[in-house]
């Protein structure tokens, strides 16, 4: 494995080159691996968030790898512009060598988190239903948004109450979630909508649905609740100095779920 981060001679960054538990770290911690595709650009943000919650840095895995590190219990597809968003967002990355291993990992019940471009890749890889279209405004949207927790009690949302509202950052041009009505009905019927865009009071209004997503859907789960895709970036709200810790519960939930009971 070659870790692309930390290659610029700067002091060690979170996430670089550590796979086995660092000396002194708790035995039961999160073994996360972030996949780095050409054009992935939020892997550092994600590594910082995971390290803050888990107390140890995740591994960074280059897309040409064909196997996940032994003991991986969470795979993360981070934000960015994999393959420059050419063809369709996430379409080329979905066929990367490592994605076969990710698909198999998920099929075995492994936990996968896809954020922003990661969500797009999960949809393109048909690990989650639907697609992310151009924002309704036809512009890139970089701003705060509010999310409402629609499904508490999952490995990703255990720290939130049902209906809790939290702030997140959105930064995407193609986050307009789309699926046919039957699929949307099924997602809602089976409780697989994880988050909806809402206003600060928790109302899922049209104004709060900045990118035009179907039924204000911001994030969805797989039927076994172990694969989550969402557009906004909870990893950018894990530090009081950087605007708050509203996104931290997602990562703490994963630590709760995975450090206790390995997949």
């Amino acid at each position, binding site marked *: 494995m070659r870790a692309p981060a930390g290659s610029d*001679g700067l002091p060690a960054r979170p996430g670089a080159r550590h796979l086995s538990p660092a000396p002194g770290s708790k035995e039961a911690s999160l073994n996360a691996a972030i996949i780095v595709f*050409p054009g992935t650009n939020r892997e*550092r943000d994600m590594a910082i968030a995971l390290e803050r919650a888990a107390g140890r840095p995740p591994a960074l895995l280059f897309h040409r790898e064909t196997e996940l590190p032994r003991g991986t219990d969470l795979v993360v597809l981070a934000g960015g512009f994999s393959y420059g968003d050419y063809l369709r967002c996430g379409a080329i990355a979905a066929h990367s060598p490592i994605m076969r291993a990710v698909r198999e990992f998920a099929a075995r019940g492994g936990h996968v988190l896809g954020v922003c471009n990661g969500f797009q890749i999960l949809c393109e890889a048909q690990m989650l239903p639907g697609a992310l279209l151009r924002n309704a405004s036809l512009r*890139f949207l970089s701003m705060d948004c509010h999310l409402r927790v629609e499904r508490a009690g999952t490995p990703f949302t255990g720290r939130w109450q049902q209906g809790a509202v939290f702030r997140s950052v959105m930064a995407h041009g193609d986050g307009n979630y789309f699926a046919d009505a039957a699929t949307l009905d099924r997602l809602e019927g089976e409780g697989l909508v994880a988050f909806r865009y809402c206003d600060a009071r928790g109302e899922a209004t049209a104004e709060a649905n900045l990118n035009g997503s179907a039924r204000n859907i911001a994030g969805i789960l797989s039927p076994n609740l172990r694969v989550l895709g969402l557009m906004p970036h909870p990893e*950018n709200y894990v530090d009081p*100095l*950087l605007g708050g810790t509203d996104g931290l519960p997602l990562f703490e939930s994963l630590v709760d779920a995975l450090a206790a009971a390995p997949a």
Partner: protein
Amino acid sequence: MTADSAPQPLPAGRARQLAAEFGLTPEEYGRVLAILGRVPSLTELGVFSVMWSEHCSYKSSKVWLRELPTRAPWVIQGPGENAGVIAIGDGLAAVFKMESHNHPSFIEPYQGAATGVGGILRDVFTMGARPVANLNALRFGDPKLPLTRRILDGVVRGIGGYGNCVGVPTVGGEVNFHPAYNGNPLVNAMTVGIARADRIFTARATGVGNPVVYVGSRTGRDGIHGATMASAEFSADAEEKRPTVQIGDPFTEKLLIEACLELMATDAIVAIQDMGAAGLTSSSVEMAGKGGMGIELDLDAVPQREEGMSAYEMMLSESQERMLMILKPGREAEAEAIFRKWELDFAVIGRLTDTGRIVIRHKGAVEADIPLAPLESEAPLYRRPTAETPKPPPLDPASVPDPVGIEEALRRLVGSPDLCSRRWIWDQYDSTVGGQTVRRPGAADAAIVRIEGHRRALALTTDCTPRYCAADPEEGGKQAVAEAWRNITATGATPLAITDNMNFGNPEKPEIMGQFAGCIRGMAAACRALDFPVVSGNVSLYNETEGRAILPTPAIGGVGVIEDAARAIGLALVPGCELVLVGATRGHLGQSLWLREIAGREEGAPPPVDLAAERRNGDFVRARILAGGVRACHDVSDGGLLVAIAEMALAGDVGATLEPPPAGIPAHAFWFGEDQGRYVLAVEDGAALLAAAAAAGVPAARIGRAGAPGGALVLPGGRSISLAGLREAHEGFLPALMEGR
């Protein structure tokens, strides 16, 4: 002669004619003949014309740029490299520069702006730094014109399209509108990177026989003679120049950043430079020239995107996302493996020699053979005639009655093109990627970007007030530097150095050169007084269309540092704080936005900058911020005091009750005058701050108290202006202009 055969000279008449078409004067062409001792080949003529273009040679500006202070104990690399470098503590360096892409952005706004961002990113990572922040300084024409809206839309999309994709946050910038930019918008892009202070890479090529390596995208026919195009005025046929604009690919740039930084972590690189303006020509000539070497290039080895390209086309192409490196001998395989991993082209295209010449071979023939030393030493250098801008008489505030009243003026000002919220723009830029943006656009006077793994943070800003520069270039030049210094200071950070982007009209006109010289004089004085040296910069001349010049616009990019990011403050008002104004208020209305937007006049002298007071006031404010107790701070600039307070109130969504102005200054001059060197502080203990100011000899006055969340600005006498109404005016302008909502 080191070449095995001589280049094929052009027919003499044809060469003279082409030289003129390529922008060389007859006198300059005479120098080419003298240096070569013969008529040049087409490729040679191309090399001379781009190297001696205004854009690459700085031939009109160099004599003036030498007047700028460039040294300080913390300066590691001043002007002359790809970017400036300063030490920022913890063994780290900040690497930064600002560069214009004005001409391409007028012709093709999206690609022009996008490739502007790409080019400045390369200037920074070329030196071994990971880019951590982008900023920009933009100037557009009259917002009422459809053309202005089209250009603004394309430029903003282009900046976002490139910066968002490469994953470097765009954290700050400035925008002005003025009819002087109708035919010539300005797009100045700035990148700041972080490197280890002891691992800075330069373009100085050394080592006879060392391989010359080409990496990145393939070479195509785009951007040929872009540098020459950027060195001439526009006429009505600007549209026809579209083929000279380059096309950007931010995805390749992202791979190039990662690959270069990965290779830089080894010790395989001797020298490296990006292929920017004048592409392969300037990078090879400058690298060999800086090292006092010769260089041989084999163009057959250059990765090419199109078939049948000539040597001339390859040497002048400005295809994007390309770099040239000199490697240590025997390190080619190691380097190639890294670039192949990142799916980038890699080719050894030449060797360094000891001949002091650049020799270019293509398809078995020598296409160019030029001695490098005279290409540099004999380059034209002009001290062009200057005509001083006549000093405008100061405007007597008493001569300008207030036509609308304070409340109405404030409402109009906060919704005017130059003061309205820039949210519509920054909402299209990813300002958070990287996970270190402590203060985003609009949150503080300077963006605050923490350095990963450290408590330390950068404070970053871009500034210039062109209407001041037009009225009095020297005062305007001073003010541009002072405002950058002030914006950094207002966060609690220490200003360290600047990059400048000098945007002016046709230097062959004495009044334009007078503006240039005046701005430089003012900037130099401010840089000296504020210990704020220039470490990099860019000059963009010939910003004229149909003979009409832009306002003189010396855009300043300022960089400061704060040891603990947690101590940096923003401008959002905090409930319950007392408001204190630091700095002297005289009610200067000349060249103010109030005068232009409310009284409909653009006249008078701009506000003078008292550099001693600037320094004293700023050092006082910074010390108070770092001592704690200051909850918010905002400098007073465009629009004056009441606009500054309104901006703080809107940012915090907190109202305020204001005290009456002192006697002797008309109310509108007090509230909207643009006297310099001032800050509004929101403090927990106003009395303590006033006592400290008195002790420091700094003018300060209590001007009000912050109210509760929401609410209103309550003016002296009890009239109040609701924040909701102000917000509607402030936030409404750009969406209404650009989206019709």
